[in-house]
């Protein structure tokens, strides 16, 4: 009878203790996540946050759901979710980990200003717990994509100095910072020289097309004027030349934007590869 009683107690205690220590929803959520059922995994991770008080379980729940959202490329949603749940965590070390995740999500959702501001915030709030290498890397990458290369190189040099690494790499990596072209200059060039803005934006074919179209308008105007078609001179010749001229000015600004973006993307991609190699 006694043996029977102890066996029953043991069985019941085991299930009770399992419940207390490891949240069954957490285990199931991880299984669903591995299987790629992210919506079910998300619900199970939320269940953990809903009915568990254990900080480690809460931490795994938060990180788990953020991971699922990141896997489906919902970085902005993951960022919102992390912000919403960070207050469930009380210890500084765990809070710092959530912040780090938040910074990654902000960076991946192209919210670069937020990523930079969070990096500054976390460096002041949790200096003891931060993963300095990871944060410095994210800081440099965010600044690069914001085209703030001078600030990025300063942080990069500082990091190389503290890590006692060769400073020449930083100088080499950032030796060819692209010179971005001015939209204002392109606009003024196009105003006074037809096609000038497009040439400045390194689009010679568009520049030639612009010159031909504007010249055609002017030529037609002259032709009409000489043959006594004064209304046609004003309406067709003037209209064509004026429209193509104004269009050319606006188009040159557009081309400069495209040019700057392209140059920055190419430069940043190369930078990213080199910097990642150094940080590995």
């Amino acid at each position, binding site marked *: 009878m006694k043996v029977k009683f102890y066996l029953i*107690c043991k069985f*019941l205690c085991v299930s009770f203790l399992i419940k207390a220590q490891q949240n069954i929803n957490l285990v199931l959520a991880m299984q669903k996540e591995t299987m790629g059922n992210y919506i*079910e995994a*998300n619900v199970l991770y*939320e*269940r953990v946050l*809903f009915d568990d008080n254990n900080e480690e379980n809460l931490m795994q729940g938060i990180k788990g759901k953020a991971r699922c959202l990141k896997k489906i490329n919902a970085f902005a949603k993951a960022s919102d979710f992390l912000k919403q749940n960070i207050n469930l965590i009380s210890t500084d070390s765990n809070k710092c980990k959530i912040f780090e995740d938040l910074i990654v999500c902000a960076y991946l959702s192209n919210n670069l200003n937020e990523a930079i501001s969070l990096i500054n915030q976390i460096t002041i709030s949790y200096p003891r717990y931060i993963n300095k290498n990871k944060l410095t890397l994210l800081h440099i990458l965010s600044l690069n994509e914001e085209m703030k290369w001078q600030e990025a190189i300063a942080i990069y040099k500082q990091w190389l100095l503290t890590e006692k690494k060769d400073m020449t790499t930083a100088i080499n990596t950032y030796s060819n910072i692209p010179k971005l072209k001015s939209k204002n200059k392109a606009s003024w060039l196009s105003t006074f020289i037809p096609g000038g803005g497009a040439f400045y934006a390194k689009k010679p074919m568009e520049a030639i097309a612009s010159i031909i179209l504007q010249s055609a308008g002017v030529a037609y105007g002259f032709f009409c004027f000489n043959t006594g*078609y004064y209304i046609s001179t004003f309406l067709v010749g003037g209209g064509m030349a004026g429209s193509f001229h104004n269009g050319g000015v606006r188009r040159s600004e557009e081309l400069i934007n495209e040019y700057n973006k392209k140059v920055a993307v190419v430069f940043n991609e190369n930078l990213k590869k080199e910097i990642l190699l150094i940080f590995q």
Partner: protein
Amino acid sequence: MLKLIQAIIITILLSTSTSAQIFKFSKEISFAKYLQNKDQIAEAEWVLHNVDTALLNSSEKDSLFFEIGWLAYNNKKLDTAAQFLQKVSSNDARYNQSIFFASYSNSFKSRYNNAYLILNKINASDSLLQELKQFELAGISLLNKDYSGYQKHKSSFSYNSYILNQEEQNFSTYEKSIFYRKDKSPFIAGLLSTILPGAGKWYAEKKKQAIGALLPILSAGILMLEAYNKSGIADARFWIYGTVFTTFYIGNIWGSAMAVKVRNTELKKLYEGKILLDMQIPLRKFFN
């Protein structure tokens, strides 16, 4: 004594260890609401739609249908809202709310007959609820352009209820526009544009479009005339400008007729929107 203690220990352990496994409907509902409050709508929907209705009694089923319907309503999924809110049985305390909002969802989806039939199921006991029902039915009749139905329900308006007063008065102003306003004629618009390019669009109350249509037609016409005066019919310029002028001129006649149709649809949509908004405000006031 020992056996009693053993029995007590086993009972306590049994209840604690199985508590995690037992499905608790109330907890599921709380969890869904928690998700909803966190704006995790997809997850909340998933939780509610995955509750096994076979495990629920009739009152729990009502709660589930209400929660699914209400969640859908708040997230503008009105087909789902109408479908689930209608399923709530009359035994549930939120029956009236469910039926009113199911009817409203159907009205929003332009299923006026359905909306009318659903709302007529309500047996309103107190005078305010009765007036609200009549007000909603009047709104559906207005949307359906049912003049006699509207007059019948309108006769129940008291114009002194704090939740309905303003909207009841609004209905009286819409009534004139819905029942007595004559749609503008596309034929007249076309005719006006034939006489003076752009006039049809002016008639359709598209004044900027009218000026925008007149200028290029006028310019092409002047150019055509200039070419004709200078060189006569043989000049290629006359034919080029003539083609441009004719294309714009005919296009504008067609465009004017279309502009009138668009304007009529816009007005219809405008009044539908106003009526639907006025139908919703008292519902929100009454049931919140």
